[in-house]
């Protein structure tokens, strides 16, 4: 008797076809990769790149002013209108300004929070804080925006808190928009900075102090330069999300409009014009991403 005959026959019963396919996939690297990426790549090309191209092409169409039909003859009329029109320039600059301010405010708030999380808090508290930072993302965007609307209202908590100090709630307007957007995007700014800080070994900070640097000098000469990529990574989120927003400004912005509002109001009656307006944030973001690519920030996302 064969002494192995008592053992189950492993492998022998595997269907020959499955085994042949496995062998084929194992040896053909390119085939394997193609099969793996086919579905997601198709999705990406269709949904993302094709949609972006459609946007670009639509911006070059026009609308017949009598019939309201879209005419597919290519023209730069809408693009020129958006680039030279007073209204569009004003709103574009306002949107850019709000996006910059939201980014600056978020970065300034995120830096100490992320520093505390990464370098001071105990491992247990650190985990709790990460959850606490992520928690607001579970709530609906609309709910949070409306919550701020009530906080900032004339009879709201803000008013109640500030009145004893002789101050008033900012009310609805650009300030309220910046506060609300800053709140909404803060987790997206804290997390990359936190991750970046985690990657700075404590020994570097100790070495700096050991060599005679005061804490402020250590932050300026060691911490900040090493954090630049992480800060830029966070700013990409707050900046691009603000550039595309139109709901928050509707809810707490008073009469102010951002680029998103112009797109939203034109989508119904003049789609080509809406597409042309939508190209502005796309171009600004493209420029920003190109500029920061060199800093290595994109590896931090």
């Amino acid at each position, binding site marked *: 008797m064969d002494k192995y005959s008592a053992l189950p026959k492993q492998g022998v019963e595997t269907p020959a076809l499955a085994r042949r396919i496995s062998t084929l996939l194992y040896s053909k690297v390119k085939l394997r990769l193609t099969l793996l990426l086919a579905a997601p790549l198709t999705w990406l090309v269709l949904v993302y790149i094709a949609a972006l191209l459609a946007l670009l092409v639509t911006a070059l169409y026009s609308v017949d002013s009598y019939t309201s039909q879209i005419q597919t003859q290519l023209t730069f009329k809408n693009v020129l209108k958006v680039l030279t029109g007073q209204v569009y320039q004003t709103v574009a600059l306002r949107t850019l300004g709000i996006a910059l301010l939201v980014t600056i405010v978020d970065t300034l708030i995120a830096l100490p929070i992320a520093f505390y999380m990464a370098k001071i808090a105990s491992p247990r508290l650190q985990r709790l804080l990460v959850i606490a930072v992520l928690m607001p993302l579970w709530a609906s965007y609309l709910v949070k925006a409306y919550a701020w609307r009530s906080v900032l209202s004339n009879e709201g908590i803000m008013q109640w808190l500030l009145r004893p100090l002789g101050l008033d709630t900012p009310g609805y307007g650009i300030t309220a928009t910046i506060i609300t957007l800053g709140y909404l995007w803060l987790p997206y700014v804290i997390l990359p900075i936190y991750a970046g800080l985690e990657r700075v070994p404590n020994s570097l900070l*100790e*070495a700096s102090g*050991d*060599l005679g*640097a005061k804490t402020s000098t250590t932050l300026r*000469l*060691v911490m900040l330069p*090493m954090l630049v990529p992480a800060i830029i990574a966070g700013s990409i989120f707050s900046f691009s999300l603000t550039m595309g927003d139109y709901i928050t400004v509707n809810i707490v912005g008073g009469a102010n409009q951002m680029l998103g509002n112009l797109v939203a109001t034109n989508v119904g009656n003049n789609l080509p014009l809406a597409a042309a307006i939508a190209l502005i944030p796309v171009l600004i973001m493209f420029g920003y991403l190109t500029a920061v690519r060199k800093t290595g920030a994109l590896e931090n996302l």
Partner: protein
Amino acid sequence: MAGNSAPIAAIELVGVSKSFGAVTAVQNLDLVINDGEFFSMLGPSGSGKTTVLRIIAGFEPATSGTVLLAGQDVTSKAPFDRDVNTVFQDYALFPHMTVLENVAYGLRVRGIGKSERNLQALEALRMVRLEGFEDRKPSELSGGQRQRVALARAVVVKPKVLLLDEPLGALDLKLREQMQIELKELQRKLGITFIFVTHDQEEALTLSDRVAVFNQGRIEQIGTPRQLYERPESEFVARFVGTSNIFSESEAASLLAQPEACSVRPEKIEMRPSSQSQKDASVLPGKIIESIYIGSATRLIIEIDGGKKISVLRQASAGSETNFDRGQQVFIEIRNADLVPIKK
């Protein structure tokens, strides 16, 4: 002259303790490190040696006790207010700065002008034989080169004491031996106190003027390498520094006719052809159960009657060489003078 004043110690720790939560890392430690000496803190990981170094550097506040630096109380001072510098285990070079900027960093934060600090940094780089590397980034250097940059960066600010936290741990054997020699040379040239943390007993013995052996947050023994090796005072030191045969109190009484527990080094034990008893020595019969050839010597494990295993080191010598094989019956001779009593 009566009352000759002792020189001021470079470092003095008085009753220093350190706890992390419920864990006591350092227990009521007293330690005096002399000016200009190469002092090693040796011990297994978790023995508290690195914690003591970090307390001296100021990275960890002591839970209780006093730290004196050149006679001055620095217990509550921040690292940047202490005249000591550290070479870190992971080197801790600033990755966004060039080698020259790294070395010049300590001078830069002291407000020394660019041309002057670069001059001094270049001088320090020359001392660690790294001229020509000043424009590279740390990521473009090998482990040994990073080590030298870390050394240059620490000594360029001319500290009174240099703290080294297992600085050679990440290097391979050949490089480590070379760096040991360079460290020793550097210390002689600078004439400053080096405090060196290591778990490698050979490294500690090779480099140091004095060694403190740490175990469980306490110092087991302080002494010159010779004292530690020749006269280990505890079983822990006898085992941790080199190899030792340990005889418990009862074994010492029955086998060696000694009143207390003691240890003996493997190379001090002689092989004898017969049981003929020697003056002031014990001769024990046994059997070779393992013979390990290690080039310059042969390590024998001999089981003496009663079952105790004894390690014996036979140095290879000029001329004919006796062979020892497994299973062979032998006699070992242990001289009373080579026995070191173990104080518990």
